[in-house]
Every structure is written in structure tokens, then in C-alpha cells.
């Protein structure tokens, strides 16, 4: 006859081995999951280094309420939207750098996205927009989506806010001539003003943001 303590010991060991088996099975599944995830994120294509092209930035200057044209050689993506975002990112990097002529915090990360869409010529002011289109290409509207952190940290003032908005518009127009209009969003939403002054509800015409229009004596 099997002693009682041996029967108990047998069942205890049986339960322990079943639990250990279940744990091992789970650990194996997790390891397999990790391996698959690592495979999915690993590069399947060698990264392409975009060729450097010249980009014209209209850099604002608070001292005399002006914008100065500066040319940089930047590796830019081929997609127009991504290109616009990269150029504006460089512009905002200049503003975030120490000793900037137009100091604004945020840098390139302040621009979430730039969307390009055809201008609806049948809308309000369609004729004016068509007239403003200097390029042969179909006129486009750029929708610049800024982060709320950028708007919150932007210095308050008519001059400084206007310069930020106008330098973005003028830079877009200088590099993407088909962009005739610019609208601004903050975190994907429409916002009344940038930091209490510059109107973000209106559509800006890039032709009006040319350097001659800024700081010009009335």
C-alpha cells in the first residue's frame, strides 16, 4: 500500500511540473513575439541620402521688422509636403538657435505636418487667387500644422508674431512657387491667434508676404 505522504508528494510534484510547463510555454511565446517584432522593424531597404539642393529661407529680424533672404544647401525629400516641412523646420531651427535675430523656441519639431492641396478657385476670392498664381503649375494651398507647445512658448507681440507667420509664408512661396495661399492649424485645430495677436483664422496670400510687404513704410 502506498503511504499517504507519497500520494500527496506525487500530486504536489505533478501540479508543480504542470505550472512550470505553462510558464515555459508563455515565455516561449513572448520570445517568439519579440523576435517577430524585431524582424518587422528592421530596415528592409538601405536608407537613401537625398541629394542636397538649394533652399531659400526668408529669415525674420526683430530689430528692423524685416526679412532677409538666406540660401542654404539642404538634403530635401522629393515629396512636396515633406520638402516644405523640412524647409520650414530649418527656418524654425534658425529661430531657436542662440543669438537668433528672431528668437522663438521650438525648432523643427514645432511643425507637425505641412499639407498641400489644390486651391478651390470657385471659392471666395477665387479670381484674386488665380491672379496671384504666378507659377504655371496649378496653385496650391499649404496648411501648416503647428504644435500647441510652439504657440504657447511664442513671444507675444504684433511684430514678432507677424514676422513668424509672414516668414513662413514667404519661405514657402520662395521654394514652392505653386503655393499661393497658407493656412495655419495648431494641433490640427483652428486657433484665433498665434500668441494673442497674429490672426490665424485667415488665409494668407504668399504674394503679400514678400519681403517688400513687411516693414514697408505706408
Amino acid at each position, binding site marked *: 500500500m502506498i503511504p499517504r505522504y507519497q500520494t500527496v508528494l506525487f500530486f504536489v510534484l505533478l501540479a508543480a511540473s504542470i505550472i512550470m510547463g505553462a510558464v515555459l510555454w508563455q515565455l516561449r511565446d513572448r520570445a517568439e513575439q519579440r523576435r517577430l517584432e524585431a524582424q518587422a522593424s528592421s530596415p528592409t531597404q538601405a536608407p537613401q541620402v537625398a541629394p542636397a539642393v538649394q533652399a531659400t529661407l526668408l529669415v525674420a529680424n526683430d530689430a528692423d521688422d524685416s526679412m532677409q533672404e538666406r540660401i542654404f544647401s539642404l538634403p530635401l525629400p522629393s515629396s512636396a509636403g515633406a520638402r516644405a516641412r523640412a524647409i520650414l523646420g530649418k527656418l524654425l531651427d534658425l529661430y531657436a538657435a542662440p543669438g537668433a535675430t528672431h528668437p522663438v523656441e521650438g525648432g523643427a519639431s514645432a511643425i507637425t505636418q505641412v499639407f498641400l492641396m489644390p486651391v478651390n478657385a470657385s471659392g471666395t476670392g477665387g479670381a484674386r487667387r488665380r491672379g496671384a498664381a504666378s507659377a504655371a503649375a496649378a496653385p496650391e494651398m499649404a496648411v501648416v500644422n503647428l504644435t500647441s507647445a510652439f504657440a504657447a512658448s511664442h513671444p*507675444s*507681440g504684433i511684430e514678432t508674431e507677424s514676422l513668424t507667420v509672414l516668414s513662413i509664408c514667404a519661405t514657402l512661396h520662395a521654394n514652392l512657387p505653386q503655393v499661393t495661399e497658407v493656412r495655419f492649424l495648431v494641433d490640427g485645430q483652428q486657433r484665433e491667434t498665434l500668441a494673442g495677436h497674429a490672426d490665424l483664422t485667415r488665409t494668407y496670400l504668399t504674394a503679400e508676404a514678400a519681403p517688400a510687404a513687411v516693414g514697408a513704410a505706408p
Partner: protein
Amino acid sequence: MSFAQFEKSTGLRRFATANLFRRILGPVSIFLALTPSVIGGQTPAPPGPRFVVVLDAAHGGDDTGGHSGNWTEKAFTLALSVRLRSLLQARGIEVVTTREQDETLAAEQRDAISNHAQAQACLSLHASLSGSGVHLFVSSLAPVQAARFVPWKTAQATAVARSLGLAGVLNSALGQAGLNVTLGRTALPVVDSMTCPAVAVEVAPDPSSGETATESLNDAGYQAKVAEALAGALLEWRQNGLSESVHEVSRKGAHAP
């Protein structure tokens, strides 16, 4: 117009033979004096031109505007508005202010006050810790011909030409006061809905003071200098307006048959 003058101008003396008649026509004459063109077919001389200035101290209440430490734009603009109002009233200019205390006002309320005042000059007062000197901004709207009805959001388009003239006078006066002035065009919702000649005046730190931005803006001497220059410019603007209206009247008189 007195009763005797009224009688003389309308020929009623011939019929006024009793005090009773005088008593009856007394109140009527007051009414007719208010509507003078009805009687006699003569147009009396127009009343003297009314000159009103609207001062809009930007921000207020929950909206502090720019701020740094204890300095707030809303307090600065209110102080400048009060100072400028006193200077203008001392020079006999009628002043309407959009706010006299720390209160929240929507852009539509500010525009309603200024448009109702039918002013000859509207100044939207701002301050900024960035830049230097005084920045003057006129609406970037393209000028249009005045019409009976104008869109609320672009009402300033009918007055842009006069706003540019006002900015020129302000620029000249501030420059003569030794202040560094920059001029520009911009889109400001409050200014874009004003029907009067309107300029946004943004006071930035004085670069020649050698003080920090907030110290410079808190400097009572600097504030007084800016306010005096603005008051002087508005006085000149009034003179220009008066001489223009005199020219207008004389021109009309010369062309009258």
C-alpha cells in the same frame, strides 16, 4: 437759435401779435430749430466738426497678453490709455475708451464701441517685450470704396487709405520725439473690423535706456514720452482734418450755383 431769431428768419413777426401765440409757438420753435431746413428753404451753417479719438487698451481680464514676471501687457496698455486720454482731453479732444478697468472684452465689443463712436482716429494700444521702440501697424486689407454696408470682418478696408495717413502722422511725431519707429501692415482682428482710421501702436522697450525689457516698459518717463508724442500727433491729425474739411467746404461753396 432764439425765439426772436427764429421769428426773424421765418417771417413770423408779421403774424406774432399776441403773447399767447408766442407761448404756443415757443416749444414748436425749439423743434423747428432742430430741423432748420424745413422752414425758409435756407440751409444753415453746419455744426462745427466733431473730433473723436477711440483708445483701445488691448487685452484685459483673463487675457493678460504678453507677460514676464510681474509685468503684463494688459496693465501696460490700460495705463497708457489712461495717460493718453488725460493728455487728449486736456487738449480739448473728445476721447472714447474701450475699457477703463481690468476687464475681459471680446474683439466684437471693442469694435462695436469704436464704430459707434464714429471716430476720426482709433488707436489700438499694445506692448511687446521683443523688438525695440514703437511699432505702428495698419491693416493689411486692400483698400475698397466705401459702401452703405460693409462686411464686419473687413470693415477697415474702407478706411485703410486714411489709416495709412494717420500712421504717417504718428510716425513723424514719434520720430521727432526721438523714438525708434517701425511701420508695417498686419492682420489684426480688432483693427480689421474698425470703420475709423485705425492704427495698432505697439510699444516695445527703449533700446537707448540700457535697461532690461520690463524695466524699460515700466519706466514712467518712457511711457510719458510715448504718450506725449501720440497726443501731439493726434492734435496734428485733427488740424489736418479741420483744414481738409475747410477746403472741402470752400470747394463746395465755389462750385455752388
